[in-house]
């Protein structure tokens, strides 16, 4: 049995099921990160002092540039499929995957620097919320890389069988990836600058 409404839109919603599905998932993600941002506000407003300059602004800014660039390459991967250019799509998707990897490598160096100085999440309230927020965000990066890896590898076969469904799948992956970028856009000033 075929899964219904993967390409054609449902008459009642005007959407393919996957599109509505990914947006509902992202809505739940907003609440997940929202709860942590809310916790951050409580911890910060309730603390007597809040550290400044504990994190490398440059490393944070470089990671922001990397994630923004990866959002551009991700949307280009989808647009290339819309233009029927699978070769370019593949190039852009691999580029997005690599940029995600570079982001994680930077994050590894940041974490390692803190941990070698004994500054783990137990060290202070600030580092506790910093590791929680960036750790959860990092897990989302890993999740995105797994999905992208699938579409670079075995999942790419669908392009030949059903190009429209494949294009939709890449669009949904993109929606998730832009959300991960969006979260970082707020994490960067909140943790690194303020």
């Amino acid at each position, binding site marked *: 049995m075929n899964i219904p409404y993967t390409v054609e839109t449902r008459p009642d*919603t*005007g*959407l393919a099921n996957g*599109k*509505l599905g990914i*947006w*509902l998932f992202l*809505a739940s993600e*907003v*609440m997940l990160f*929202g*709860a942590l*941002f*809310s916790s951050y*506000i*409580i911890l910060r*407003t*309730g603390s007597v002092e809040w550290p400044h300059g504990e994190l490398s*602004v440059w490393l944070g*800014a470089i990671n*922001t*540039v990397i994630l*923004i*660039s990866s*959002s*551009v390459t*991700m*949307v*280009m991967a989808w*647009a290339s499929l*819309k*233009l*029927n250019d699978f070769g370019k799509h593949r190039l852009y998707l691999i580029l997005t995957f690599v940029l995600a990897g570079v982001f994680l490598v930077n994050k590894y160096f940041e974490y390692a620097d803190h941990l070698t100085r004994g500054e783990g999440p137990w060290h202070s309230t600030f580092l506790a919320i910093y590791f929680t927020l960036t750790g959860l965000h990092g897990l989302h990066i890993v999740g995105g890389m797994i999905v992208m890896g699938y579409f670079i590898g075995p999942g790419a076969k669908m392009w030949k069988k059903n*190009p*429209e469904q494949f294009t939709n799948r890449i669009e949904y992956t*993109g*929606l998730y990836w*832009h*959300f991960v*970028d*969006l979260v970082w*856009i*707020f994490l*960067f*000033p*909140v943790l690194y*600058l*303020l």
Partner: protein
Amino acid sequence: MHSDAAEIKKSIRTYMMVGAALLVFTVITVAVNQVHLGSVAMNVTVALIIASMKGSMVAAIFMHLSHEKRWIYGALLLTVAFFVVLMAVPLLTVSDTIGTPIHAAPSAAAEGAHEAH
């Protein structure tokens, strides 16, 4: 798929421009942070305004929210409402009086009056 090729090519130009604008805003965010704007609250406000502008661009253009179906707008409207409630939860810590000696002031005043006698 070929019919909307011109439309997609136009969108690609928009994606590139938005990508460039996001990078410029990142530079502005870092630059503004180097300047003390009078108070920490002012710096926080400016940084969050810039972040909101960047976030809106990602959502509207990259996530195609500028032209989506109403079912998605409906779901997101609910999400925004609950998100606002979530962000307002910290306000409860201000109105929380548990542990605050609310009768301390009147009883101290009474004690003072007693001593005067």
